[in-house]
C-alpha cells in the first residue's frame, strides 16, 4: 500500500496562547510540535506498512520550522517526505484555511497515486477538522472520519472502524484510494530511535514552495477577522439557606451553569 500521511506542526500543548498584533493568529514565538492526531495517523500508516508492505510518505505544509515534523516522521520510519514550504508569513497575514491547505496538497500530489491518505481528525490549533474531508472531495476519493482502525479487506478495499457518539462504533468497508481522518489515542506511538534519526538523514525530503504549485492564502474561503483568547473568570457564589435548599441550589448550578451533571 502506498500511504500519504499529512502532518501539521502546531503550537505545543503547553505553549502560552498569545495572538499576533492583528489578532488574526497565534504568535510565532512559541514552541511547536506535531499535531497529536497526525502522530497517530503516522503510527497507523507505519503499522499498515509493516504488516502489509508498501511505502509511507509524510507531507507537511508550513514554514521552514515545520520540516521538523517531517524529520521526526522519517526517523520513525516514513520512507520519504514532502515539505510544502509556505515561507515566512508576513506579519498579520492570515494562515491558510482548510480549503487552501487541501487545495495545495491535492496539487502537490497530483500525478502520484496513493492507496490511502491519512490525516489527523483535526488540528490542535485551528480545529477545523476539514482538511482531510475537503482533500477527499478535491481528489474525488471516498473518505471516512474519526477512524480508529484500518485493515485491508481484499483487492483495493479497506475496512475501517469509526468512532461515533456515546461509545458506539461503526464499521465501514470502502474502496481505495480513500482519505481517512484518524482519531487520537488509537495506538501506542513509537519513539524515534537513534538509529532511525541517523537513517532519516539519508531519506529523500522534497521541498516545493507554494508558488511552485500555485497555492496561497488567496485560495482561502474563510476570512478570520479577529481571534480572542478566552478570558479566565473566577467567581465565588455563596449559597445560603437550609441544607436542603443549599443542596437543591448546588445541583441547579452544576446542571445549568457548570454543565457538569
Amino acid at each position, binding site marked *: 500500500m502506498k500511504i500519504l500521511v499529512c502532518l501539521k506542526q502546531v503550537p505545543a500543548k503547553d505553549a*502560552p496562547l498569545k495572538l499576533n498584533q492583528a489578532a488574526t493568529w497565534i504568535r510565532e*514565538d512559541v514552541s511547536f510540535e506535531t499535531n497529536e492526531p497526525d502522530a497517530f495517523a503516522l503510527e497507523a500508516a507505519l503499522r499498515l506498512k509493516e504488516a502489509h508492505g508498501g511505502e509511507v510518505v509524510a507531507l507537511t505544509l508550513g514554514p521552514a520550522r515545520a520540516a521538523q515534523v517531517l524529520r*521526526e516522521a522519517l*526517523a520513525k520510519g516514513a520512507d520519504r517526505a514532502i515539505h510544502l514550504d509556505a515561507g515566512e508569513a508576513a506579519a498579520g497575514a492570515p494562515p491558510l484555511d482548510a480549503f487552501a491547505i487541501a487545495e495545495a496538497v491535492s496539487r502537490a500530489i497530483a500525478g502520484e497515486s496513493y492507496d490511502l491518505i491519512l490525516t489527523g481528525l483535526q488540528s490542535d490549533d485551528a480545529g477545523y477538522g476539514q482538511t482531510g474531508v475537503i482533500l477527499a472531495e478535491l481528489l474525488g476519493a471516498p473518505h471516512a472520519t474519526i477512524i480508529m482502525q484500518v485493515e485491508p479487506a481484499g483487492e483495493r478495499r479497506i475496512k475501517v472502524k469509526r468512532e461515533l457518539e456515546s461509545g458506539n462504533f461503526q464499521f465501514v468497508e470502502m474502496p481505495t484510494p480513500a482519505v481517512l481522518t484518524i482519531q487520537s489515542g488509537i495506538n501506542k506511538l513509537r*519513539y*524515534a*530511535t*537513534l538509529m532511525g534519526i541517523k537513517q532519516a538523514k539519508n531519506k529523500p525530503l522534497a521541498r516545493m514552495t507554494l508558488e511552485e504549485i500555485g497555492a496561497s492564502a488567496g485560495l482561502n474561503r474563510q476570512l478570520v477577522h479577529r481571534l480572542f483568547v478566552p478570558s479566565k473568570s473566577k467567581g465565588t457564589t455563596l449559597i445560603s439557606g437550609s441544607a436542603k435548599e443549599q443542596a437543591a441550589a448546588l445541583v441547579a448550578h452544576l446542571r445549568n451553569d457548570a454543565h457538569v451533571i
Partner: protein
Amino acid sequence: MQAELNPRAGLHADIRAAVRELCGTFGGAYWQEVEAAGGYPEAFVAALTGAGWLTALIPEAYGGGGLTLEEASVILEEINRSGANSGACHAQMYTMGTLLRHGTEAQKQRWLPPLARGELRLQSFAVTEPTAGTDTTRIRTVAQREGDRYLISGQKVWTSRLPHTDLLLLLARTTPLEAVRKRGEGLSVFLLELPPAAEREAAGMSARPIRNMVNHETSEVFFERFAVPAENLIGTEGQGLRCILDGMNAERILIAAECIGDGFWFLERARRYACERVVFERPIGQNQGVQFPIARAYANLLAADLMRYDAAARFDAGQSAGAAANTAKLLAADASWECANVCLQTHGGFGFAAEYDIERKFRETRLYQVAPISTNLILAYLAEHVLGLPRSY
C-alpha cells in the same frame, strides 16, 4: 518573551525532539511513584535503552550509535530538562568509555555488541571507598593474582545502580602502595560479570543499599575473594588509575550537560510560576526581588552552557580537554544549583510539595556539587594543572 529558553535548542534538534518525546511519556507522576516506592525507573531506562540512547557513544562498528560527545551530552541534557533524572542510567554512557579506550579487541567484541543491543547493562562503577574518599590512590580493595584469575577483596561504597547492572567496572590495587614508585601506580581496572543475585554471596560478594537523599539505588559492596578471570582485566595491570582518569573528561562534560538540562527545567518552572502566582494583587514575578535572581541564574546558566560546548568541541576534536571539561562541570553544577535554589524560593511553600517535582529535582541537582567529583577537587585541579599553583593535596 522567548518561548524557548535555550538559545541552542536548534542544535541537534532531531536528537532533542526524540528524547523529549520519549521522556514526555514519563511525566512527574511517574517519577513521584518511583520515588515513593523507593524503586528504580526500570520502564524509563528500558525505553531509553530500546531507542538506542544509552549506547550512543559506542561506535557503529560495535552496533552503537557512534555519536560525538557533544551529541551524547545533548541526550542527557534533554533527559534532565524533561524533569527526569539521568542519574538512573547515565553511567552506562561513560563507563563503557574505559572499555572502549583500553579494552582489547577481543574484550570489545565480547561486550560492546550485547551492550549496544541492550541485552547487557554496564552501569555501575566501583571506585569510591569509605576510608579513601577522594584520594583514590589510597583505596584498599585488592585484586590478587592466582593462576588465571584475580581474587578481589575489600569494600566499596556508593556503588550506584548495582541491582540494575550485569557488569561492574571496579578499581582495585594489584600492587601494594608501599611497593610502587608513584602513588597512582599499582591500581588496575576489572570488568566484573556479576553472578545472579542468589549466587552472589557464595561467590564472595554482598551488598547493602544505602538510604540516601537521591534515588540512585546506591550500595556498599563487600568482596571476599571474589574471583574474576584474568581476561577481564582492562588495560595494563598497574595502570588502572590512568584508564579511569582518561574517562573523566567525558564524564565531566556529560554531567555538565545534565546540570544544564536541570537548569533550564528549573528556570522554566520558576518563570511560569512567577508570572502566574498572584500575591498582593500582582504576579510575584513583577517584584524585582523575585525576578532578578531568576534572571541572574539564567545568565549564569547560559555562560556555563557555552563552556560545556567549548569542552565538548575540544574533546570531539581530540584536543586536550581537561581544563575545559573541569571548568564546564564546575560552572554548570553551580549554575544548576543556583537555578534550583531560585526555583524553590520562587515557589515558596509549594516548592516543597512533592507533586511539583521541584524538591526532588532540587535534591538531585545538589548531588553534582559532590559527585562524581566535588567542587573543591575541580578547583584543586585548575589551581595545580592550569594555573601552576603548588599541589594542595
